[in-house]
């Protein structure tokens, strides 16, 4: 423990964006929450509960983008299946919320969720046991994605599968899970997924205060994960991770077991994705197999590419901007959104290989050089 605190208090830089990011994130969250709870609905500064939930959803996406960036931007592992870990975390939370419904379901069965009654099941499948306990469900939300990532990563990285082959395998992983969760026999509600949630830890999910609390918790967890990730990536382990990205074989010849580093980073990233999923479900009120669809996972990669991979702040900004654009765009021209997304990806790849954060760096360098010239003249 002392080692841990020493590590945190040590003078290694946490990145110059960390403090401003945490301050801005938390102050915006608190202001928005206060505006929702304490202002009258007709006030000019009132923030609607719909907006609060929307912002909470964006923050979950930002957390997910962080997970993708850690593995892709820093370690060069392009995972096109991170939606799988997100959805598994979401399902764990969904199962807990399902069991909280109790006998208030349509069929009024005190033990079985509605879809099981509908399928004429008599008892709860074994993997639903214990999910009525919040702590157990949350443990599963972290453990299941982590374990899947460990097994997958251990097999893939040990046999030195890299590059596009690995990306295809992650894509196949999430697609396989998509197909599996579609099946009614799996016991996860099939096509419809899990929905119609009533309350979490005894608080009604429809209440404004619960919505605000979920939003605040998401923001705080995002800040914590941001700081911890920044710490990890600025330690020597972070340097090894960059070294693996830039020249894996060289890192091996220096004496690093690169496969182990990759497995642990992959697990860490999957756990973050799982947490994001668990926070996402109570805010949007549904989890279904659609979350496993490969296109979702590809979208996540685009968020990171737009924001700037290899910078944590870039991933967060990318996720927020692209999702805000999606919300606005799908309201005006729902059909054109995917084209817009594709166009955005092409433009970013061609003109902003380092994303918006890279653009910021370029502009700053330009201004500096102009200023230098002026000062010389």
């Amino acid at each position, binding site marked *: 423990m002392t080692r841990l605190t020493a590590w945190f208090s040590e003078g290694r830089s946490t990145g110059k964006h960390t403090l401003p990011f945490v301050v801005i994130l938390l102050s915006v969250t608190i202001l928005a929450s206060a505006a929702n709870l304490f202002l009258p609905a007709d006030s000019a500064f009132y923030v609607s509960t719909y907006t609060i939930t929307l912002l909470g959803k964006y923050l979950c996406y930002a957390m997910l983008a962080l997970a993708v960036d850690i593995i892709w931007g820093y370690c060069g592992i392009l995972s096109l299946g991170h939606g799988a870990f997100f959805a598994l975390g979401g399902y764990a939370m969904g199962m807990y919320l399902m069991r909280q419904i109790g006998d208030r379901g349509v069929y009024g069965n005190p033990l079985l969720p509605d879809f099981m009654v509908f399928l004429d099941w008599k008892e709860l499948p074994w993997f639903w046991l214990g999910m009525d306990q919040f702590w157990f469900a949350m443990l599963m939300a972290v453990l299941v994605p982590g374990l899947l990532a460990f097994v997958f990563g251990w097999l893939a990285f040990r046999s030195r599968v890299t590059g596009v082959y690995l990306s295809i395998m992650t894509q196949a992983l999430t697609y396989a899970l998509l197909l599996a969760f579609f099946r009614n026999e799996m016991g996860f509600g099939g096509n419809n997924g899990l929905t119609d949630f009533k309350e979490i830890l005894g608080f009604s999910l429809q209440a404004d205060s619960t919505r605000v609390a979920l939003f605040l918790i998401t923001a705080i967890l995002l800040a914590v994960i941001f700081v911890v990730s920044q710490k990890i990536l600025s330690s*020597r382990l972070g340097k090894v991770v960059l070294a693996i990205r830039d*020249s894996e074989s060289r890192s091996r*010849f220096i*004496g690093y077991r690169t496969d182990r580093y990759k497995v642990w980073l992959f697990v860490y990233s999957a756990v973050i994705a799982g947490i994001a999923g668990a926070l996402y479900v109570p805010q949007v009120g549904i989890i279904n197999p659609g979350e496993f669809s490969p296109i979702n996972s590809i979208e996540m990669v685009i968020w990171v590419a737009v924001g700037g991979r290899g910078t944590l702040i870039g991933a967060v900004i990318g996720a927020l901007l692209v999702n805000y654009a999606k919300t606005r765009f799908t309201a005006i021209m729902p059909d054109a959104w995917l084209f817009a997304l594709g166009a955005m990806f092409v433009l970013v790849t061609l003109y902003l290989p380092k994303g918006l954060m890279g653009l910021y760096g370029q502009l700053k360098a330009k201004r500096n050089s102009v200023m230098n010239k002026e000062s010389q003249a």
Partner: protein
Amino acid sequence: MSTLPSKTLDSTREFFRRDQVWPFLAPEQATVNVDNQVILYVEGLNLSFDGFKALNNLNLYVNDGELRCLIGANGAGKTTLMDVITGKTQCDSGTVFFGQNHNLLNKDEAEIAQLGIGRKFQKPTVFEEQTVFDNLELSLKTDKRVLPTLFSRLTPTQIDRIDEVLKTIGLAKHRFMLAGALSHGQKQWLEIGMLLVAEPRLLLIDEPVAGMTAQETERTAELLTSLAGERTVIVVEHDMEFVRSIARTVTVLHQGSVLAEGTMNQIQSNKDVIEVYLGEEAAAGEHA
């Protein structure tokens, strides 16, 4: 108890002797046993790629503290030999021992590196997105498992060590520069520095002076000769002038096996060598 056949009892006692140490329980010795003065044993090494014999019954012994030069035409098997020693390539048959106690053939790259075998590649490979200092920090001789790396901190001794190496390789002014921004020669030096800071027992150096100016070459030669004695160095080089300036013992490889071994003078007067390798150069030298 007395009904137990005494023979069984004896054999059990024999089997579970108190001083018995099972091989799989014995800790792997971290030290390299060089009692016989030899640090690297390569015996009967064979390797073929699609029928082409890259290594053909190759035998090579390198003494502890020696500076050895490997020369040979393209395709003679120099780089392949280094690949086998460092675990990059699996050989078909043969043995490679580091000291008397480490079989290198059943170890992977990382394990071999941790034993104290450092390698410099033909093409300089440094971590271009990181600073010169970080490159050296990564190469330090430390515990390289995941968790210790996460919680590691640079000790003052390690910082001094890095500073010392920075001075040796002449990059002290560039410590916070990105390695990718260095010139070709500087990258070569940085890579040599990465080897030095890891304090290896055995250094395998592939074409250290390619792309260096005459002055830089001279400094490299000085550095390598100063290393020998304390460490064992094996250098692969095409630049004969350079080899002449550093080598005490030269091994000539030809078509995957050792053609000749000896001092530079012996090698130059060796008939076989003149025929297959130095032939053209010697002939050219006579004409000049």
